[in-house]
């Protein structure tokens, strides 16, 4: 079947061209983009506020018009008609163009912001200057490349979010979830941090500064949260800053595990997270492109968990690098910190190996043991390495390589840039250390699972095809097994696209959650007992 034609059409592509309305909508949206493009090439716009407004609203309106035309005439229900016939959503010509354009944008954004008009001392130029008025209105500061990116990101989530709401208007779970990500992105990721930055040097902070802090961004997703400049920022802001620091730590060790216990990792990955938000809204047209092979699953497990190990090491090294050695000044020293980390990791490792081992696959067990030994060995080396050298590397080198490889290349350039080629959740699936940690919690002790409805599965494959995390949902459903997978972000689309109502995301009792028995209803029960005896 490898030579299989994408369209299945022997007489040419089925008709999936744009309607007249959609052509106009595309024109409008692209006009907005062209204004930004002109700004990049330093066309100076006389009234920046006006032109920025025109540009952003054309993009916004273009997307809305397009989606209104696509869904308003249709009855509510799953409408993935022609997804595999369209060039943009089936890795065709336009998908490659979009992928290359996005990737190019990310490369410039991360590594060559000067081409976008960033000027370190003096007024901004180019597209960044175009965004200055909005930035000044929010935080009082001129725009940066991150502000431009943040604005576009938010516009994308809002506009494509509305598209998603139209598309899934028959499904309340999807609607509420989308409204939630739209809200979290606009408020927590975009507006609140800007306003917090505005409070810099304010009287209530006694002249200190409040860090730009996206409250919903938990370590290790914000791997920089415990770097010395952040800690100084927190501590210089008095009580509020200190409270933020405590909140940052609590979110890792208390809030996150509790929420994940109750609701699975979906509370974060598909209700709160910005990366997930973009994947679900702007990335929705590409969700079916994720690789479902068992090979991809193996790669995923090794890569994502290696990232967790890497980020743990890196953060430990970074914190270590700015701690002192004198116990009389402050209780937290290089040594006590490393011992603390070692104890914590040992506890987690010991708990898993003692109580939860049977819930992990063999390769996960070997991996865990391997990583544990490596980390412990590296921690042990602290006593033998010279000052400033933590482990075998300088902490700065470690941090730089992490932020380059994972923070930039993986999460941005590949994660988002390659949406049209690899699907929408590449970063979440292969790269996000936060998702990996939440997944670990979800797999081991969450009440969350996807239940399968008896023996009603017809193995049609809609669930697997539309799983953005590349889980072969059908493999479980057709056996009648509950689905408890570390990577499942609980988006609920498998359940939405199932034509037989087989799948349900639910929080139930822990008991019997990982049900390895094949409970297929229909046949006489005695037979099933027999089958299960094997």
């Amino acid at each position, binding site marked *: 079947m490898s030579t299989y034609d994408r369209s299945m059409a022997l007489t040419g592509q089925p008709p999936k061209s744009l309607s007249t309305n959609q052509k106009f909508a595309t024109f409008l949206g692209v006009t907005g983009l062209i204004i930004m493009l002109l700004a990049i090439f330093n066309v100076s716009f006389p009234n920046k506020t006006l032109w920025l407004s025109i540009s952003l609203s054309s993009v916004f309106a273009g997307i809305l018009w397009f989606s209104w035309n696509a869904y308003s005439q249709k009855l509510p229900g799953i409408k993935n008609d022609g997804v595999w016939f369209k060039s943009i959503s089936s890795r065709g010509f336009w998908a490659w163009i979009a992928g290359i354009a996005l990737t190019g944008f990310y490369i410039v954004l991360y590594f060559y912001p000067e081409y976008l008009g960033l000027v370190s001392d003096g007024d901004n130029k180019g597209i960044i200057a175009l965004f200055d008025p909005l930035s000044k209105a929010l935080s009082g500061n001129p725009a940066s490349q991150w502000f431009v990116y943040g604005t576009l990101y938010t516009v994308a989530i809002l506009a494509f979010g509305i598209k998603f709401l139209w598309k899934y208007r028959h499904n309340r779970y999807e609607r509420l979830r989308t409204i939630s990500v739209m809200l979290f992105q606009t408020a927590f990721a975009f507006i609140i941090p800007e306003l917090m930055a505005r409070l810099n040097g304010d009287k209530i902070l006694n002249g200190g500064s409040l860090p730009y802090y996206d409250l919903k961004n938990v370590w290790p997703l914000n791997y920089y949260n415990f770097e010395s400049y952040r800690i100084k920022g927190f501590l210089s802001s008095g009580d509020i800053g200190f409270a933020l620091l405590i909140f940052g730590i609590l979110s890792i060790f208390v809030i996150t595990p509790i929420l994940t216990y109750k609701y699975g990792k979906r509370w974060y990955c598909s209700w709160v997270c910005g990366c997930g938000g973009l994947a679900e809204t702007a990335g929705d047209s590409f969700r079916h492109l994720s690789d479902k092979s068992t090979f991809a699953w193996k790669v995923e497990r090794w890569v994502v968990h290696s990232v967790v190990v890497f980020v743990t090491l890196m953060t430990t090294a970074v914190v270590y690098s700015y701690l002192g050695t004198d116990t009389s000044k402050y209780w937290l020293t290089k040594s006590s910190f490393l011992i603390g980390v070692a104890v914590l990791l040992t506890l987690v490792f010991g708990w898993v190996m003692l109580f939860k081992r049977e819930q992990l696959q063999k390769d996960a067990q070997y991996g865990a043991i391997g990583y544990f030994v490596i980390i412990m060995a590296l921690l042990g080396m602290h006593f033998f390495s010279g000052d400033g050298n933590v482990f075998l590397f300088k902490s700065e080198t470690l941090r730089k390589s992490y932020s380059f490889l994972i923070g930039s290349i993986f999460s941005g350039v590949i994660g988002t840039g390659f949406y049209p080629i690899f699907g929408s959740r590449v970063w979440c699936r292969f790269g996000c250390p936060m998702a990996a940690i939440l997944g670990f919690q979800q797999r081991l002790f969450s009440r969350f699972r996807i239940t399968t409805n008896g023996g009603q599965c017809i193995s049609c494959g809609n669930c697997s095809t539309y799983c953005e995390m590349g889980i072969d949902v059908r493999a479980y459903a057709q056996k009648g097994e509950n689905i408890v997978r570390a990577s499942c972000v609980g988006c609920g689309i498998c359940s939405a696209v199932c034509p037989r*109502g087989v799948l349900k995301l639910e929080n139930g009792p822990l008991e019997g959650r990982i049900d390895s028995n094949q409970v297929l*209803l229909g046949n006489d029960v005695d037979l099933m007992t027999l089958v299960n005896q094997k």
Partner: protein
Amino acid sequence: MENIVIIGNGIAGVTAARHIRKLSDKKITIISSETEYFFSRTALMYVYMGHMKFEHTQPYEKGFWKKNRIELVKGHVTQVIPDEKKLVLASTESIFYDKLIIATGSKPNKFGWPGQDLDGVQGLYSKQDLNMLEVNAPNKKVCKRAVIVGGGLIGIELAEMLRTRDIPVTFLVREDSFWNGILPNGESQMINEHILEHHIDLRLSSSLKEIVSDERGRVKSIIVEETGEEIPCDLVGLTAGVTPNIDFLKDSGIELGRGVKVNRFLETNIKDIYAIGDCAEQHEAIGNRRPIEAVWYTGRMMGETLAQTVCGNKIPYNPGHWFNSAKFLDIEYQTYGWVFPEQRKKAEEMHFHWRHPKEKICITIAFHKDSEELLGINTFGIRLRHEIFDRWLTEKRTIAYVMEHMADANFDPEFYRTYEKDIVDQFNSDFGKTVKSKKKSLKQIFQIA
């Protein structure tokens, strides 16, 4: 090593193969002329609609077959010679078996209509039919109108498929309301409305008289029996049910009725030859079931059962409570137990019917007039938990109990609106009862102490 040969790589044959492998080390060979690998027939529609690629309908990766040592042979069996335990393929090659499982499925019904073999006339069952549909109806320019004959599940699926490519569809249904040989009136009525909402030209009480040919032997139009109306069209979809695909067995000595006759152990009249799935016909119908059940789930269950028998643990095919599900365009349908339509309803079968005032959501519960025991339930637009209804049917719960605990049975996604209260209110007013609906209980759903 014993050689098990299975003809047909559909759900029945493949399930049998998988379970035989689980239970034994026997040599397993599957022969099919349709496709190289097992795929989900019920998902073919999504390929045409562009929701999926054909590969997506294949549940197992290529390595699966090798890993499980299931040999796949692409070939067409033309003859079975039981005396020599031999199969003859169209390629004139022979294959010998120790045990033979016939799982050849069905083929679309053709009732001898004039013109039924013209170009542009086809059924929708096999992969080949789908390929043919791409030729006959790739878009609305080539296919200016399609006529679908036969008001069943395949018919409505074909209509939905064609509509995604904006092809105008006329849907001829012989009955006076869609699928009312299976569905009670209220439900059938609701589906009629939904079909019209999708801009499908639904013609009830209409049957096919004749398919008219153009000068090149292609379909030009059809003529409706009842009105004599001629409807020009480029495609005629014949979806008036299916028949077992067993022509190649005619001279084999295997006892045939409409299908391959089998006993409760799925054995044919000849030793070491079995039949499962769509092509198997029970000597005696089991309970309210039909002797031939062309349903995905029964094929799967027969495969599971037969694997036990073949591997030395002889057990009868003993299907539990009837269940089925389908989707009518945007409306999901599930059924558990038996809810009969008006013309087949027994005197003691009472129905409670509720329909949402605006949405296309409804529910019908059948119960015994005297004992008030639950007989079955149909739902449209509400998902129900299979295990719960299976349990309630086994426990012979009363309609009042079902009403009270409806919340436990709801399988809709979280945050969906629930209608238990409305349903119970109407039940109370219809039957003069005072049932109160109870809150959802995880303990009851998951049966934990």
